[in-house]
């Protein structure tokens, strides 16, 4: 235990978090610990296993995506971080503080200052205007009216809703409503933002735009974002790290390319088969390292295969540079094609 308390660069640490829904979770927990599966526990005790012994380390300043199909426990998982749901067993540390040991008052202070949340169904207050919705978290925290409205106006502008300050939320489209939800969370200036299927209710085009905006915002704000989605493409696009849940149990956790290049099991392989691999694989994980001759065209080491593909129309190979602009390697069309082809069933 002491080792988790020591690591302060971890924003969120979960240890053996288990959640069982039902009147007598302890009995069901004993069965689960004895090695019974989720289906067996449900058949025997009529208790639903929401989360089964999930441990996660989420470093500060990254977008951490939890991916899973509906019923996999991902929404249950995210609600443990701000204790909207109490676990049956396990430990949850946020910046080294045990969330489960907080008193009711401490918990409220924690929710008011440390974690903000964005919801799939937006959860906006229909009787308030847009600006009052965005200022809601600050109002609950006790910030004065003038100051909170100024902050709210700034974030409304940032999410591109300037001019809608005094509209009612129900008059807005889904995409605009979720921008209000996002602005409301950002206005809290909390270190951690929890996003529960935040973009799932939006149209594909609007969703892609919101994803890009989130990535841009994250770069400038450097928050820790825990993002829940059922969409593997979305996970690959925005995630610094991805965890895959199935039936409440953690299947695999790692960088997007780890999951695409080395899926841990059949279930994940199924996802990988459907996915746009060019988006998932970073150039740096397939490049040949070392000094090479100076290049005509170069890309950042954070670029993905889809970014370099068009460049091969003109060039044999493309240089890869680090954050300082120094060339650290190169990547050829052949390498990219190999990486993309390797994991296509029946080819590799």
């Amino acid at each position, binding site marked *: 235990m002491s080792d988790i308390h020591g690591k302060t660069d971890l924003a969120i640490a979960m240890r053996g978090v288990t959640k069982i829904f039902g009147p007598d979770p302890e009995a069901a927990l004993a069965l689960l610990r004895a090695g019974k599966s989720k289906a067996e526990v449900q058949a025997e005790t009529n208790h639903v296993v929401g989360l089964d012994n999930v441990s996660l380390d989420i470093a500060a300043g990254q977008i951490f995506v939890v991916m899973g199909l509906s019923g996999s426990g991902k929404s249950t998982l995210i609600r443990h971080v701000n204790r909207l749901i109490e676990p049956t067993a396990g430990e949850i540390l946020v910046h080294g503080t045990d969330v489960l040991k907080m008193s009711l008052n401490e918990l409220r202070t924690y*929710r*008011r200052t440390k974690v903000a949340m964005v919801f799939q169904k937006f*959860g906006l*207050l*229909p*009787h308030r205007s847009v600006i009052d919705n965005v200022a*809601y*978290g600050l109002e609950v925290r006790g910030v004065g009216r003038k100051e909170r409205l100024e902050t709210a106006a700034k974030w409304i502008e940032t999410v591109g809703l300037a001019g809608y300050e005094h509209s009612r939320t*129900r*008059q807005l489209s889904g995409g605009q409503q979720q921008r209000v939800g996002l602005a409301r969370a950002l206005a809290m200036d909390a270190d951690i933002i929890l996003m529960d299927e935040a973009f799932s209710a939006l149209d594909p085009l609007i969703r892609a735009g919101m994803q890009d905006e989130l990535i841009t915002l994250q770069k400038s704000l450097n928050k820790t974002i825990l993002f829940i989605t059922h969409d593997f493409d979305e996970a690959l696009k925005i995630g610094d790290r991805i965890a895959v849940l199935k039936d409440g149990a953690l299947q695999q956790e790692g960088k997007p390319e780890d999951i695409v290049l080395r899926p841990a099991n059949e279930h994940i392989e199924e996802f990988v088969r459907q996915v746009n691999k060019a988006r998932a694989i970073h150039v740096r994980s397939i490049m040949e390292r070392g000094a090479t001759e100076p290049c005509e065209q170069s890309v950042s080491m954070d670029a993905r295969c889809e970014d370099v593909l068009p460049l091969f129309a003109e060039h044999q190979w493309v240089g890869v540079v680090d954050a300082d602009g120094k060339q650290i390697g190169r990547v050829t069309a052949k390498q990219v094609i190999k990486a993309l082809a390797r994991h296509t069933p029946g080819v590799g």
Partner: protein
Amino acid sequence: MNLFPQLIDTRPWRRAVDDGLNWVVRHWGGTFEAAAYPLLVLLKAIEDLLIATPWWMIIALLTGIAWLATRRWQLPAIVLGSLLFLGVMDLWKDAMTTMALMIAATLTAIFISIPVGVWMSRSFRLRQCVTPILDLMQTLPSFVYLIPTVMIFGPGKIPALIATIVYAAPPLVRLTDLGLRSVDPSVMEASRAFGTNPRQRLFGVQIPLALPTILAGVNQTTMMALSMVVIASMIGAGGLGYQVLQGIGRLEVSRGLFAGLGIVALAIVFDRITQAFGRQLQARIGMQEVR
């Protein structure tokens, strides 16, 4: 003859209830009367105010409120017509007495019912206890509790007011409870995630969102209070109900008919105004413009 067999002797029970009531009247009558005195003060104050206010001012006020509630000419016209009818038919003073009884009963019912409704919405056990009591209040023939109340308080305005409140309060309790419980759970969860305490959630989220339903309860309460005025006038409430009663007693059909239509006119005025406010509120919350 087909008689139900006498299994036990119920006469001692009846005697116990009758003696118990007599004992209460003898020993506690004064206390009860003192406790209900604030109700009488409220009723008298409202009645005196309504009677002292010039008729044209009351007509102007209610017509103005009707206009504020709809911003159209139809409802103010209906309100104006109904009130003029009361004046023309020489029922104005009686109408004010009845209106005072209704307003006093509604205000008291709001004062009691909304907190009970709030409490019920939060406790499953309390809801299980209160619901049968509400059923009893609504279905028990009013004469059954009217007679004991008259015995305790003596005939007059207090038992009339209490009987009206007993009959009119239940729908408001039920609709407050329903309105608070049917607030969108995702909005409640969002509010919780921002660290609100129960009081902030109640006053900041639940009550504002349940307000249209609560207002529907207030509307129901005013209507039920008006439907009690004839019975209430039997024990000394006066007003339009008394005119109806006299009309029946003297076989003056016209007197009963016009006073009865006067009650209908009052009902129309208050029903339409509260409903219009409910619709306005709902539009403001935006229930009707979901895209």
